């Protein structure tokens, strides 16, 4: 009955993309926010961004929605809208103060995630993007389980070039295999830095073991792209602005846009295949 409820609620969602990483601080939320902005640039598309990082919800700040509250209506919880076609939901909106710690064990976190999926009135959605916390635990198991009521196009896995990140990301890739979650591909963030003054390139996080490129080769997973470090990215996130809009000329923007396009193409192709099968 529960599954039926979730299925009904998510029936109007065309594509679902999970943004994962084994490692923390590699840019999952940054990427989720920019993916949402990028997809919503097409005003004919309805985009939903769900932040299930319950302990460290970054999405409200990154989307410029800090201090917003969630409203209840007859049809459920209303997402907070950044644009008419871009709605956001996060535990951040449920806190009375942004510094309140959510100190919950697994079962309580799972309960909230289920509520987000069951009670939020997303309406018709072309893309549901789910931002996750680092790791392979309750939140990840639960979201895959609950979303089996609908279907997940796949996961985008975020990493940075150094081995300390990759070793956690390999685990995440194995997690995806274990729960039969298709992997759309890997994004390597913080991949080099070009000095705006002297234009020299430095590897701030050197890929001592070949970076995401080598890992993707070894594990037969697609490398969607590499995004260089740009201090403007962090600034835009802190200010709740879209980096893509603030720095349209940055090499990082170009990388992000290419990656977003590849994800779109993957989802559209996926859908075509499914329709053909039907």
């Amino acid at each position, binding site marked *: 009955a529960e599954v039926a409820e979730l299925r009904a609620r998510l029936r109007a969602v065309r594509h679902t993309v999970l943004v994962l990483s084994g490692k923390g*601080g590699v840019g999952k939320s940054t990427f989720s926010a920019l993916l949402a902005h990028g997809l919503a640039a097409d005003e004919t598309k309805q985009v939903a961004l769900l932040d299930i990082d319950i302990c460290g919800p970054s999405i409200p700040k990154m989307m410029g929605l800090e201090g917003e509250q969630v409203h209840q209506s007859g049809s459920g919880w209303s997402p907070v809208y950044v644009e008419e076609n871009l709605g956001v939901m996060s535990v951040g909106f449920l806190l009375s103060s942004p510094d309140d710690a959510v100190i919950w064990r697994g079962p309580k976190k799972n309960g909230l995630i289920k509520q987000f999926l069951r009670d939020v009135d997303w309406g018709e959605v072309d893309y549901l993007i789910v931002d996750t916390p680092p790791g392979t635990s309750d939140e990840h198991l639960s979201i895959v389980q609950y979303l089996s009521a609908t279907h997940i196009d796949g996961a985008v896995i975020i990493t940075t070039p150094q081995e300390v990140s990759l070793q956690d990301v390999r685990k995440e890739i194995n*997690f995806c295999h274990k729960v039969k979650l298709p992997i759309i591909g890997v994004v390597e963030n913080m991949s080099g830095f070009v000095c705006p003054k002297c234009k020299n390139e430095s590897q701030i996080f050197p890929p001592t073991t070949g970076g995401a490129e080598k890992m993707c080769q070894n594990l037969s997973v697609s490398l969607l792209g590499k995004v260089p470090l740009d201090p403007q990215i962090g600034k835009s996130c802190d200010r709740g602005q879209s980096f893509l809009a603030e720095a349209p000329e940055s090499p990082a923007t170009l990388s992000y846009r290419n990656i977003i396009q590849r994800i779109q193409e993957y989802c559209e192709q996926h859908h075509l295949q499914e329709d053909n099968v039907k």
Partner: protein
Amino acid sequence: SPADRANLAGVRHILLVLSGKGGVGKSTLSTELALALRSAGKRVGILDVDLCGPSIPRMLRVQDRAVHQCDSGWVPVFVGQDKAIALMSIGFLLERPDDAVVWRGPKKNALIKQFVTDVAWGDLDFLIVDTPPGTSDEHISTVEALRPFQPLGAILVTTPQ
């Protein structure tokens, strides 16, 4: 219980390294702190309770080592020629380094309790406890299990943004 207390009885100071945020350098700091304390002649242990993303073994170049059991519990991995750093991490319990630990809270809590009370640390000046990001099962369980041993305190790690 007295048996539980025995393994931490020889530990002088317990320090936790925390952050809400991931990727800010908790494990890096824990490792550097341990190495600095060792250089200062102290006996140091690191307890790595990041079950999903254990980084410490690789940082100390002991990722290929294994742990053993003795009468009083787990024998930690001793790092370096002088064996002056003792380390316990789930990294040592994995069959393959890329195996994901896909556990829900209760199972994580059980292992953390074991890690706190069942590791035969011996005599240590400092036990540094490295944690994963967040404020959830691992943190609650670690603090609860350590409470009887009166940790010195927590070091919080952040980055500027």
